[in-house]
C-alpha cells in the first residue's frame, strides 16, 4: 500500500468516525452508523427498516412517508464516501414482509441507482424472512468473508468475528446532571452489534439483559455516534434506562 493511500484513509477515519477491531480485522466505524472494511471494500449497514412509515399507516398511524427516502439518502452519502465493492444490509431491511411492494416509485428507482456498480447483499431478518422481489441483490441468511461472519441476529456466546444487528443498541451517559442518549456500536473485540440505520428505528439500551446474553457479561464497549467522531465508553460507565 502506498503511503499516500494510507494517509488518505486515516484522514477519512478521523473525519467520519473511528476504527474498531473485530477478530483481528480493522474496520472503519462511521459515525453515520455504518461499518466499512477497507481491505475488502465492503460497506455494512444494519436494520434499515424501510417502509416502516407505511407499515404504521396500515394501522391508521400516519407517520411522515419520508422515512425510506431519508434512509436511502443517508446510505447514498456513505456509498459515495467509500465507493464500496459490495454493500451488505444486515437484515430487517424492510419493516415487514410487504414493505418492498409498498415502495414508492421514486424510492424503488433510488434503490436501483444505489445498487449500480457494486454487489448488493440483503441478509434476511426476522421482520423480512422471505426474499423480496424486484429489488435486486442476493438474499442469504448469513455471509462469511474471511475472518468475519455477517448475520442479522447476534448469536449468544462469543462467536469470533460476528457482525450483527437486530438489537438496535443505544447507550446513555450522564454528565453534569444531563443525559445524552445515542445509537452506538457495541463490541468486545470478537463480535460487534451494529446500530440500527433506519430513520424511524428506535433503540434498546445496551444495559438490557439481551446484550449480556450476547457478550456473555458486561465486558464490552459502546462506541456512541457523535458529530464527526465516536465516543467510547465501557458498558459499565453507561446507564440503564
Amino acid at each position, binding site marked *: 500500500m502506498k503511503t499516500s493511500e494510507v494517509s488518505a484513509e486515516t484522514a477519512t477515519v478521523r473525519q467520519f468516525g473511528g476504527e474498531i477491531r473485530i477478530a483481528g480485522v480493522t474496520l472503519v466505524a462511521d459515525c453515520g452508523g455504518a461499518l466499512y472494511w477497507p481491505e475488502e471494500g465492503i460497506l455494512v449497514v444494519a436494520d434499515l427498516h424501510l417502509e416502516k412509515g407505511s407499515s404504521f399507516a396500515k394501522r391508521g398511524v400516519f407517520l411522515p412517508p419520508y422515512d425510506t427516502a431519508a434512509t436511502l439518502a443517508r446510505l447514498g452519502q456513505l456509498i459515495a464516501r467509500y465507493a464500496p465493492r459490495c454493500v451488505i444490509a444486515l437484515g430487517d431491511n424492510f419493516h415487514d414482509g410487504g414493505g418492498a411492494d409498498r415502495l414508492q416509485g421514486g424510492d424503488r428507482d433510488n434503490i436501483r441507482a444505489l445498487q449500480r456498480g457494486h454487489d448488493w447483499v440483503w441478509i434476511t431478518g426476522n421482520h423480512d424472512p422471505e426474499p423480496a422481489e424486484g429489488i435486486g441483490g442476493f438474499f442469504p441468511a448469513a455471509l462469511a468473508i474471511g475472518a468475519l461472519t455477517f448475520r442479522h441476529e447476534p448469536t449468544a456466546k462469543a462467536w469470533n468475528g460476528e457482525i450483527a444487528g437486530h438489537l438496535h443498541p443505544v447507550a446513555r451517559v450522564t454528565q453534569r446532571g444531563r443525559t445524552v442518549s445515542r445509537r452506538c456500536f457495541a463490541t468486545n473485540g470478537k463480535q460487534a452489534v451494529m446500530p440500527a440505520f433506519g430513520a424511524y428505528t428506535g433503540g434498546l439500551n445496551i444495559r438490557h439483559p439481551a446484550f449480556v446474553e450476547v457478550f456473555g457479561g458486561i465486558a464490552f464497549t459502546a462506541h456512541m455516534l457523535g458529530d464527526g467522531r465516536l*465516543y467510547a465508553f465501557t458498558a459499565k460507565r453507561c446507564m440503564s434506562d
Partner: protein
Amino acid sequence: MLPRKADELLKRIEAQPLLPEPFEKWFAARGWTPRAHQLELLAKAEAGRSALLIAPTGAGKTLAGFLPTLVELSKERAAAKKGAKKLVSTGRGIRRDGGLHTLYISPLKALAVDIARNLETPVTEMGLPIRLETRTGDTPVSKRQRQRRDPPDILLTTPEQLALLLASADSPFLFGSLKRVVLDELHSLVTSKRGDLLSLGMARLFRLAPQLTTVGLSATVAEPEDLCRFLVPQPVEGQAQADLVIAAGGAKPDVSMLDTKEHLPWAGHGARHALDEIYDLLKRHKTTLLFVNTRSQAERLFQDLWRINDDTLAIALHHGSLDVAQRRKVEDAMTAGKLRAVVCTSSLDLGVDWGDVDLVINVGAPKGSSRLLQRIGRANHRLDEPSKAVLIPANRFEVLECHAALGAVADNAQDTPPARTGALDVLAQHVLGCAVGEPFHSDELFEEIRTTSPYAVLTRKDFDDVVDFVATGGYALKAYERFAKIRIGQDGRWRITHPRIAQRYRMNVGTIVEADMLKVRLVRSRGGKTAIPRGGRVLGQLEEYFIETLAVGDTFVFAGEVLRYETLVEDEVYVSRATDEDPKVPSYEGGKFPLSTYLAARVRDLVADPKAWHALPEQVREWLEIQQWRSLLPKAGDLLVETFPRGSKHYLVCYPFEGRLAHQTLGMLLTRRLERARLRPLGFVANEYALAVWSLGDVGQAIDTGKLSLAELFDQDMLGDDLEAWLAESALMKRTFRTCAIIAGLIERRFPGEEKSRRQVTISTDLVYDVLRKHQPDHLLLRAARADAATGLLDIRRLGTMLARIKGRIIHKPLDRVSPLAVPVMLEIGREPVSGEASESLLAEAADELVKEAMG
C-alpha cells in the same frame, strides 16, 4: 347624568322577573335576599340573552348561574302537571318534551361533583322535581349509557366529556332539547387548548340546539370582552358578545409583605430564612393555605415546617404529582376542618370552596397580579369580610416583585393572558370527532367552526389542510390514500372508514398531554445485592425525563420525604427512604409560571425610580443603592448589560425581567452568536429577572474595541436563522411537537398498564420531527408546534417584544468585578442545570475524563 342612570335602574327593576314563590320562601327561610347579580342573570335568561358573570369568590356565583335553570324547570314542571304531553310537534317532526335542559362544564372533575352536591340542597329543600347528575371519567359505563337514553335535566361534566358526548350518532337526540350551558371558571378554561376544544364543542351545540343560551362564570380578568365573545356564535362579519354582568366587589383584601427580621437571602426560592415567622403565622390562624410555585418548593417547605413543628400542627401537602387518593384525603380532611395548614401549588388555585381558610400565604414570587388575586380569594369565602394574605419573598428580587404585586392588588390590576387563536392540532382532533359523530360536509363544518371566537380567523386553507391531515396525514407525498381514516362519499360528506377509528378517537380525546409519567413506589433499600422486593406503596408520579437524569443511589425529595433512587422496573420507579437530610439532586421541574409582563414592567419601574424605594425593606434599599454606586440602575425602558471577569472566565449579565423561559431562549441564541464571534461561550444560567452567560473570550473587551456590537448581538434577527437552527435540535421544541402530535392524533397516548406492549409499537416523536422537518417543513403539525413555541416553553413572542423594546436602548457597563444586582443570578450557577452546552460537548467531556483517568 344621574336621571338617566336612575331611569335605567328603574327599567331594570321593572324588567326583573319575580322569583317564583318557592324560591322566595327558600331564600327567606335562610335569611337571604337574592343578590342583584343573581336577579340580573335571571332577567338575562328571561330575555333569551347569553351572559358573562364576573364575581369574586363567595358572591354566590354558582347559584346565580343555576337560578334561571331552576326557575324555568320548576315552572315547566308545574305546567306539565296540568296535563301537557310528553311529545311535542315541532312542525317538521316530533320533539320530546323535557330532556336535557342545562349542561354545566367545569375545568375540574372534582368541582363538577362538588357543585352537584351543593345544588342538591336547594333542589331538595324546595322540593323541585329536577334530576341532576354528573358525568366524568369515573362514571360507570351502565350509568353513562342510561344518561344517553334518558338524560337528566341538568348534567354536570368536563370539556372532554362534552367532546365524547358529541362524537356519537345520538348527539342530536341528546342535545336537541338543550336550553342553557353554564361554563364555570371560564377564565381558566379559555387560556388553554382545552378552551379551544370547548369552543368547538359549543359551536356544535349551537347548531344542534339553536335556542341555546350560555352563562359564563369567571373571576375578574383583564379583557372581559374576550370571554363575552367566547360565549356566543360569531357572525361572518363583525363580532357578537354576550352581555356582561359584574357583581359588586367584596371587601378589599388585606394583603401585606412579611417584614422579616432575618437576613434576606440573595437567591433561592425556599424562604428558609422566614421559616419561624411563617410557623408563627400558622399558629395564630385557624386554617392557612400556603401557596408556592413549584412542586419541589412545596416538598421542601413541607419538610422544613415539619422539622420545626413543635406543636404538631396538622400540616398537609398537596400537589399535582401526588397520588390521587392521597390528594383526595387531604381535600377531605380540609373540608372536615381537620387541618391547620396545607402547603400547595397551583393544584389548589381552583376548586372546591373552603369557608374556613382565614389566611393565605404566598411563598416566593407572586408571578402575576391576577394569579395572586385568585389565590388571595381562596381565603375567607364570605363577601363582607376581607381576605387576608401575607406575601413572603424568598430573595431580594422577589421583594421587588412582591412590592410591585402589592401595588397591583391595590389597583385591582389584572394581567390574565390575552385571548387565544385556536390551535390547529385541537382542530384536527375535533374534525375527526365530528366524522365519528355523523358524516360532515366540509363547507358546513368550516362555517360552523368559524363561529367560535378562537377560530373566527381560521383560513379555508388551514381548514382544508386539517381535513387532509385527518384523512391521510396531510403529506405532500400522497402515499396513504388507501389507508384513509375518513373519506368523502358520493353525498359530499366525510365519514370514518372503519368503526375502529371511532374507538381509537374515544381513547385519545382531550388536550391535556402529560409528560410521560412513571409511578413512584416505595420499597425497602436493598442494601446488599439481594433482589428488591416488589409491591410497595405508590407515592405518586414523576416525569420520565426527570428520572432519566438520575443514577442509582441519587437522592431527591418527593412526597414529603428524601428518597433514594433504586431502580426502574418496567414503568415503575422503585425508591427507598434515604437517611440523608439534604438530597443530592436539587429539584425537578413542574409548575414554573413565568413572571407576567405586567408585573415585570412594574418591577422595572420600581428599580428605575429611587423615590419609590422608601417603601422597601432597608436591606433591599441598601442593595439597590450600592448597585447604583458600583454599576448603574437602568432607566425603565433600558436594558443594562454588565461585563466583568471572574476566575478564568468572562461574564455577560443582562436584566430583561422577562421571565425564565424567555431568558432561556435568549441564552441559547446569544451563545450561538458569541460562538460565531469566536468568544467561546461555555454556558449560561437564567432566572426570572436576569441572564448570565460566561465565556473564555473577553466579551467586555470585544465590546469596548468594537469587535462585538451589542446592538447586533441583541438584534431581532436572532429570531430568524439562529432560532430556526436551534429549534432543529431543541429538546423543548421536540417536547412541544410531541404534544401537538398526540393532540392531533398522529400518535396515540400511552396508558398506564399497557406500557410494555405499547412501547414496542410506539415510535419516538423526535425521529418523526427530524424527518418531517427535513422533508415537509410547512407540515400542519410543525406549524402547530411553532405556534405553541411562541408562547409556551420557549416564550419566543415575549422575547421578540423585548428585543424590539430595547432596540437602541442597550447600556453597556464594563466592570472589574461582579455587581450587587448580578449576585442573585450568579448564585444560580451550580444550583440550576447549566444550559447552552450541546450534548456533543458533554459527551466529549465525559469521554475525555475517562482518558484523563486512564492516563493518571
